[in-house]
């Protein structure tokens, strides 16, 4: 399965004269984990914001051939585009099960909303299993560990039947084991979905990317396989310039 789920054509985002994204083309395919990398301020998050309807843009975004530009945030989400945020955003005062049940229910009618939940939908229990939170069904999301929150947020997209997942720094703040688990989870869910991952961590990228797009200053610097991109002199230049800083940051985080 390698069909194109999402096509972005010539996306431009203009913040009052400042071009945060300046003409980006991107294709996301089902079955792939597509990494979006680039230095701070490259426009990665802004690109995700544009696709999901949070900021206005020019150009075109097609999901399975249907234009998404101009649609409202919740309509785009209903088309199967799911996203996470750079800082994990879950409903802290609700339990893991409640978080997932809400995420599963955007299609519910008023009648089922106004009644009490009798049992957890199968999709919710399956997803809790999948994201490793089966033992935490009744734990408040607010007291989960950092990494668990990020898994929960991914789980919320899965249970909501998103088939294009845009994940903004999903392993930020995770330890080594949690990263490995997340990597496996990404490949697992990419089997029948298109997954895009915004990340700074190069090791994680090398280990998990099916395809890489490098953004810099709002435009695409390079795109291709991990090896192609790594060998690209323009990419080396951008990353050599920041690599000291990057390694220092990594060392500080460890």
């Amino acid at each position, binding site marked *: 399965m390698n069909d194109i789920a999402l096509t972005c054509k010539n996306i431009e985002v203009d913040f009052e004269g400042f071009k945060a994204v300046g003409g980006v083309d991107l294709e996301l395919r089902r079955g792939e984990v597509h990494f979006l990398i680039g230095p701070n301020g490259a426009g990665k998050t802004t690109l995700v914001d544009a696709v999901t309807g949070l900021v206005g843009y020019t150009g075109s975004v097609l999901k399975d051939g249907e234009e998404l530009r101009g649609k409202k*945030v919740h309509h785009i*989400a*209903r088309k199967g585009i799911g996203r996470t945020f750079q800082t994990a*955003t879950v*409903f802290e005062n609700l339990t893991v099960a*409640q978080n997932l049940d809400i995420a599963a229910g*955007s299609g519910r009618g008023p009648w089922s909303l*106004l009644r009490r939940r009798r049992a957890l939908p199968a999709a919710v229990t399956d997803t809790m299993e999948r994201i490793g939170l089966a033992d935490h069904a009744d734990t408040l999301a607010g007291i989960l560990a950092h990494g668990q929150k990020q898994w929960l947020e991914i789980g*919320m997209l899965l249970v909501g039947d998103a088939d294009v997942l845009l994940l903004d720094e999903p392993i930020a703040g995770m330890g080594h084991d949690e990263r490995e688990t997340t990597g496996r989870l990404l490949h697992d869910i990419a089997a029948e979905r298109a997954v895009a991952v915004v990340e700074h961590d190069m090791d994680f990228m090398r280990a998990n990317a099916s395809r890489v797009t490098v953004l810099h200053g709002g435009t695409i610097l390079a795109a291709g396989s991990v090896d192609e991109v790594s060998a690209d002199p323009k990419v080396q230049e951008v990353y050599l310039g920041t690599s000291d800083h990057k390694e220092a940051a990594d060392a500080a985080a460890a």
Partner: protein
Amino acid sequence: MSKFLQSRLGAWTGFAAAAIGLFAVAPLIMSGFRLGLFAQFICYAIVAVGIGLAWGRGGMLTLGQGVYFGMGAYLMAMHLKMADAEFRNGPGAVPDFMELAGVRELPAYWVPFASPAFTVAAILVLPTAVAVLLGLAVFKRRVKGAYFAILSQALAGAFAIFLIGQQTLGGFNGLSYFRYFFGFAINDPVNQQMLYFIAAGVLLAVVAVSLQLRRSRYGELLVAVRDSEERVRFLGYDSANIKVVAYAVAALFASVAGALFVPVVGIISPASIGIVPSIMFILGVAIGGRGTLLGPVIGALAVAWAQTTLSEQFPSAWTYAQGLLFVVVIALLPGGISSIPALARRIRVKNRPEPVEATA
């Protein structure tokens, strides 16, 4: 204990106890005058239940519930005045206060309020519809937080000023001297007790509705919107619609409370619905605990009682005390009185490393 209260059986037991207290005990131990006062406080408590839903659960700081309270009250008062006029001078008669002001012809918008059915329908539908329209306009534009609070408060102020200007609604003095409530003489103590029973019954009903909403999936969704509206939208929900429902239910409760307030108290004027009364509604909810089911009720009753007792003795001091109380509660005890048991438990647990789980 808290598990028990959350269970179905617990809820029924709680309602049964409240019903016995309201319907059997209160009429026994209170004089007619006290019972009338209690009925008035219950009207405030009904407003508070709605605020608990919209603010406590939905995060919408509804600083202007006086608008909906006032709508319900004036709609009811118009009917009562029409009924009185009809009783004295036959159908189509002009209410007494208009006669005094020299109005000979009944204004057209008063005419339908001769009908009790129309009036009840208007009380239920009109404020709710206004809340839906206003809510859609405001929430779709993503007006929230302090902006929403200021907007709703300004609305209450504007509504009171508008009413002061309406001579055919009694202007500054409002509407008063009601003789009959749907055919029952209001000054008859038996009927006054009946009004109290109606208010108490409505209070139980709105608490039941609020409980069901809190426990439903909608209730969870409302909390989700309160805590992270953006996340909810990115999951495919139109968060504005979710908020509008809670806001409209709160408006409906306020309207019904206003409608009951009129025969219970015997007067409605702009002074009872403007900014200051609206803040008093919020104050009770804040003090009682906006996040809980019964906190708003308890807080509203307590504030109304304090206001009645204290404002008689220290009329001007009460206003300041009210403001001070609000600030203190918001700053030091954001969960209100009802958060004290949980807080105490947490402190106790902190002091004793091994908490006993079995009794939970």
